[in-house]
């Protein structure tokens, strides 16, 4: 063996590479039941009998001719490592396409071991693989594994030192007579068609398929993607997700954090913090006379309250449901179901993930755009959702203020999402590649993986988003101190009342919307208005500025999504356009109908 050769786990997306990595390295990284979750790679140490070697969970790749970012990363790994041991992870239920990648790897002269993962599901589906025959044919070790249960992982570890290269012509020679057809020696080089023929020949001699009746999960899976049955089911799931979110987030925020912050933390810090009246006091504590944590506006009062009391419970509830939906394989089905609609605005079905999250809280929604392929798609999604998707707190207040109109407001905002999406899609340069959404099977979610995923994401949120939210509150306070906010209020007042026909008293509410949009909507209820003006101003607050937490996230994610200036500037431009056009259109409609 060479000086600690790197072990690379390679294979198609969603075949269980991360699960296998966790088992091999004793790590816990998140596994997802949908393709394309691992764009970043993870490296760890693998303990062998004679010391440890580095092991890498390489992003999924369909072939060695990369077509997207994740695949390019995968191929780079292969080229940069010196004589790596490649563990080619194959989904045994889809053995053909896996073997195609195996052959491609062997053809390039890499030392390989094949892990036939999902062995349990293959058995259930009547896929019988003659492991010995396959191993003899390929000329490399083949180990059946069930990564989620740890079955076969020890075998795999102990065969690593038997990894070896193998040539395609050798494989052809070893094919049993009768199946080699007209392959003789024709598969050298990069000829995909010939390689597929060889795959067929290998499968023919080592794999048999038994007829099995489709299981209940198979039937259910089909029902969830057929529009007639799938759409009502999707409504049920989304409603359930929202209801779970409001129950859990309300439990923590209204049940515990509001009293905790308002009755204990706020009075305490107001009384012990030195220098009342000074700028530092204003910045960190805010209004000394405030009686609730929202109105205080200090970094340690409102900032901490928003970050910990409001957003954290929201994240907990949402990420839990999301992890369950992902692991069960339902999220990918929802993506397939909605793919056509999203295609019209240059996105694909997976944009549903950030969108669904945003209905709870825009902060994780913006973070979730990381899974989208191109900068353009990320920009589109971030902008559209921070402008048009009201968060759970907003929805809640809307429902209590104007329950009879909430449904229509939602539809109006969703229509805006798609109309502006289509427009921005035309205006913004960049590509929006099609992805073949690969539908994974429906599975029962595994608690251990759900909890790993949940704790990873929450930890990520605490360390990366919370500081941004606190900083955001600080910046707003500085703007207040500098008089910028008052200036904006005087300047914008006439514009808003002129264009939208709402009283200028709504301006402070709009500014409050920067902290928490739901409370802005609540403030609106105190202003006497006609029903239309109420609807109008609620729509405005919804479209209008994302809250400070979302704004902070836009800045944070913008750094990796095409540049902060581009993302935030573009989002602001969209926002202003949307506010004036989409809000103005509503007023026009109201005027025409004679209700404004």
């Amino acid at each position, binding site marked *: 063996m060479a000086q600690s050769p790197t072990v690379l786990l390679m294979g198609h997306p969603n075949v269980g590479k991360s699960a296998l990595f966790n088992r091999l390295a004793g790590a816990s990284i998140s596994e997802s039941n949908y393709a394309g979750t691992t764009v970043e790679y993870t490296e760890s140490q693998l303990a062998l009998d004679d010391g440890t070697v580095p092991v890498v969970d390489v992003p999924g790749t369909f072939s060695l001719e990369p077509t997207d970012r994740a695949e390019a990363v995968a191929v780079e790994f292969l080229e940069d490592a010196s004589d790596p041991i490649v563990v080619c992870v194959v989904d045994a239920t889809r053995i053909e396409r896996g073997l195609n990648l195996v052959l491609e790897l062997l053809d390039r002269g890499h030392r390989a071991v094949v892990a036939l993962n999902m062995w349990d599901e293959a058995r259930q589906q009547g896929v019988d693989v003659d492991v010995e025959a396959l191993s003899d044919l390929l000329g490399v070790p083949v180990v059946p594994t069930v990564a989620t249960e740890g079955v076969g992982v020890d075998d795999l570890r102990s065969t690593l030192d038997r990894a070896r290269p193998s040539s395609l012509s050798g494989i052809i020679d070893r094919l049993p007579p009768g199946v080699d057809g007209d392959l003789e020696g024709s598969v050298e080089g990069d000829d995909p068609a010939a390689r597929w023929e060889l795959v067929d020949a290998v499968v023919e001699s080592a794999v048999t398929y038994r007829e099995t009746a*489709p299981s209940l999960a198979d039937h259910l899976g089909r029902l969830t993607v057929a529009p007639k049955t799938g759409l*009502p*089911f999707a*409504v*049920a799931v989304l409603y359930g997700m929202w*209801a779970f979110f*409001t*129950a859990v987030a309300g*439990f923590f925020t209204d049940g515990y954090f509001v009293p905790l912050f308002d009755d204990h933390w706020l009075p305490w810090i107001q009384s012990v913090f030195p220098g009342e009246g000074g700028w530092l006091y204003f910045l960190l504590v805010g209004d000394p006379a405030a009686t609730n944590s929202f109105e205080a506006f200090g970094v340690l009062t409102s900032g901490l309250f928003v970050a910990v009391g409001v957003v954290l419970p929201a994240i907990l509830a949402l990420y839990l449901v999301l992890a369950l939906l992902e692991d069960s394989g339902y999220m990918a089905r929802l993506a397939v179901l909605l793919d056509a609609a999203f295609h019209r605005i240059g996105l694909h079905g997976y944009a549903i993930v950030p969108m669904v999250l945003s209905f709870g809280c825009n902060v994780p929604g913006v973070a979730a755009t990381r899974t989208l392929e191109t900068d353009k798609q990320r920009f589109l999604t971030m902008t559209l959702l921070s402008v048009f998707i009201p968060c759970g707190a907003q929805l809640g207040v809307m429902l209590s203020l104007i329950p009879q109109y909430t449904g229509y407001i939602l539809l109006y905002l969703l229509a805006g999402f798609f109309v502006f999406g289509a427009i921005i899609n035309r205006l913004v340069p960049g590509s929006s590649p099609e992805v073949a959404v690969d539908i994974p099977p429906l599975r*029962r979610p595994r608690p251990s993986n759900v909890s790993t995923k949940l704790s990873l994401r929450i930890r990520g949120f605490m360390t990366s988003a919370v500081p941004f939210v606190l900083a955001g509150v600080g910046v707003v306070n500085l703007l207040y101190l500098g008089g910028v906010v008052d200036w904006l209020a005087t300047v914008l007042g006439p514009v808003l009342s002129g264009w939208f026909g709402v009283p200028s008293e709504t301006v402070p509410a709009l500014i409050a919307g920067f902290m928490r949009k739901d409370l802005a909507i609540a403030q609106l209820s105190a202003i006497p208005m006609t029903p239309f003006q109420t609807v109008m101003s609620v729509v405005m607050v919804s479209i209008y500025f994302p809250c400070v937490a979302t704004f902070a996230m836009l800045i944070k994610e913008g750094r990796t999504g095409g540049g902060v200036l581009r993302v935030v500037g573009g989002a602001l431009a969209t926002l202003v356009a949307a506010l004036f056009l989409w809000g103005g259109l509503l007023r026009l409609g109201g005027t025409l109908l004679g209700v404004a």
Partner: protein
Amino acid sequence: MRFDDAYFGLLGVAVGLAGLLAVARGVGLAIPDPQSTLAVVSVSGTFLLWRGIVLLSAGVFYFQGATEGLANPAMQARVFMASVMVWIVAGADLLGRLLGAVPGDSEVWVAGSGEVLAAMGPPYSPAVLAAPFALAALAYRSREGSP
């Protein structure tokens, strides 16, 4: 006719009608809440229209399953999915009540068991009432190996 055909056919009619009522009240038709005549049921609350749509579709799926014949595994799956939809709506309802009641008033951190029990008591939404009957669909699952 198999027993389960009749059972889910009837359940489908009941759930579907409840869904229809919720949809009608959800879009604002002036139909009284059944609570006025039948104290244990109440068709009201947030997102009534959407919950109505879910129940109505679940009712239709049950009914389709029953009329096409539940000897067919594809129809069993349809009935199973309808049950999942009923459970989602019912579960969301009960969870909301429970978590809404537990923090109690501003005086206490955890409400007394009496108050929590009162919050969990009747009237119930049609989904909650249908949820136990929907459990029968689990029978289609146990006949298989683990999925």
